[in-house]
């Protein structure tokens, strides 16, 4: 397989990956709200602990605030680099291209190119699904924007944007081979990094990393802390392809009986802290993507348990000053 030469490093995320540093990325979900202040506060909690934060694009097909403006403000106001997620569900190639130009114009440098969950899974199932492009075609379009400076039809762009483009993959997929071949296809058109779906079983992560090592693309393994026994059971029973290891489930149940929320959080800190430490020590994973939406407080202790050092910044003072200056109270 041909490995594409990509010119230039445009983002901190990519610089750290290229330097072989183990990266931590986080996730912020703009929801059905105009309270942008809350989104920035959530991002501020991650600053210093994650290299960059993914900003979701109507996840699970739910109709939420667009990710573009939060992405811009999180970079400008919070000072935290973003990975702007773009799905193909709600916009055709013209609309996506327009948003990408806007993103490029304000310094967004990382894109996660996704196909997107189907509209019928979301909370406005009556909408028309677009899927003018799929994730691989979106990667192809972005690479042409960046490398050739053209739109999807080949028309030149004045001052083309600089993006690194990542894609998703699912280590839990069954069957796994078509998933790996699909990833190979995405890499062949220029995907530069991979963020995976959540993995709870470290053996699944290790097997996947081995299986895709031939692609020579940085893999960031997805994890998602478990807020409650209920959430764990729901994921285990209702989410096809995700299974919670028995030991972890039992520990969560014991924790619930022992000490409620605090004890459950301690289980999470221990489990995922050790999970990350093990990944870092024994695999070639490029990092970990922590999907802890609404559980941002868990990230610092997990990262500390994993033996990774928080960047030395006094982010709290920094952010309070910035937010109070730029964002008016929303309520």
């Amino acid at each position, binding site marked *: 397989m041909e490995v594409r030469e990509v010119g230039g490093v445009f983002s901190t995320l990519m610089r750290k990956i290229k330097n072989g540093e183990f990266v931590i990325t986080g996730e912020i979900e703009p929801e059905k709200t105009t309270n942008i202040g809350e989104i920035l506060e959530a991002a501020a909690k991650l600053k210093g602990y994650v290299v960059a934060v993914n900003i979701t694009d109507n996840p699970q097909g739910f109709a939420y605030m667009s990710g573009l403006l939060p992405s811009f403000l999180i970079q400008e106001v919070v000072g935290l680099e973003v990975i702007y997620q773009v799905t193909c569900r709600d916009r055709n*190639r013209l609309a996506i291209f327009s948003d990408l130009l806007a993103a490029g114009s304000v310094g967004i440098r990382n894109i996660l190119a*996704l*196909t997107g*969950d*189907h509209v*019928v*899974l979301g909370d406005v199932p009556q909408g028309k*699904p677009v*899927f*003018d*492009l*799929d*994730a*691989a*075609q979106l990667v*192809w*379009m972005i690479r042409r924007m960046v490398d050739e400076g053209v739109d*999807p039809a080949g028309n030149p762009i004045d001052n083309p944007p600089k993006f690194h483009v990542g894609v*998703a993959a*699912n280590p*839990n*997929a*069954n*069957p796994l*081979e*078509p*998933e790996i*071949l*699909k990833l*190979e*296809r*995405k890499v*062949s*058109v220029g995907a530069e990094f991979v963020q995976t*779906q959540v993995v709870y079983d470290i053996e699944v992560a290790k097997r996947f990393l081995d299986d895709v090592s031939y692609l020579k693309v940085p893999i960031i393994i997805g994890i998602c802390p478990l807020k409650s026994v209920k959430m764990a059971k729901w994921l285990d029973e209702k989410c*096809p*392809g995700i299974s919670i290891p028995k030991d972890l489930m039992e520990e969560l149940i014991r924790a619930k009986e022992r000490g409620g929320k605090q004890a459950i959080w301690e289980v999470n800190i221990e489990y995922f802290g050790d999970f990350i430490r093990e990944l870092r020590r024994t695999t070639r994973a490029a990092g970990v993507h922590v999907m802890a939406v609404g559980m941002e407080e868990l990230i610092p202790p997990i990262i500390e348990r994993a033996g990774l050092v928080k960047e030395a910044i006094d982010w709290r003072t920094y952010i309070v000053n910035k937010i109070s200056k730029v964002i008016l109270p929303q309520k």
Partner: protein
Amino acid sequence: MIITTQKPLEEILNYLRPYRKIFIIGCGTCATECQTGGEKQVQEMKEKLEKEGFEVVGTGMIESPCDERLTRKFIRAQRKNGRALDDAEAVLVLACGAGVQVVAELLDKPVFPGLNTHFIGKVERIGRFYERCRACGECVLGETGGICPVTQCAKGLLNGPCGGMADGKCEVGGWTRPCAWVLIYERLKAMGRLDLFKKFRPPRDYSRKAGPGEVVWR
């Protein structure tokens, strides 16, 4: 096969209410196969309308109402043999949307559809019809093991499977239907053609599909 189902009677009655004398036309091809617009259904529709107080002045079958030549021939024959069609105040067509439109183009009177048209599909048996073709005009079946991703993948993806696949099933419909791209993978693997599976397919050119389709070669 063009797969159709009959519209609810109430909807048909709403269309026809301003008129009294009705002519019913059936389709001898797809709608006959679907048992929605065959001779039997035309007869049943006649009885239903008469029960509702309409006067059904005539009925007739066109082998393929979508074929303008056959529909013209039918109209000529009707006029030669009597005045039923000309006497009718409205015409109800039990055919697909193409059939209804051809009849409407050729008759200078109100023409109404009796069926809903769903898709081009396979007939497993009567009452079990499955979509198989979107008529996209750029058939990729030669590269996908004879399984159409445009039709059978819920997202119509050319580079699947997507992340909505679990245990070989599709997220749309709650993981009950097979993922088209897993079917394609299995088929191509059995054929020893996973190279086709890995192939990148660029975005489609929809400019070719702008406006109503026309195929004119003579």
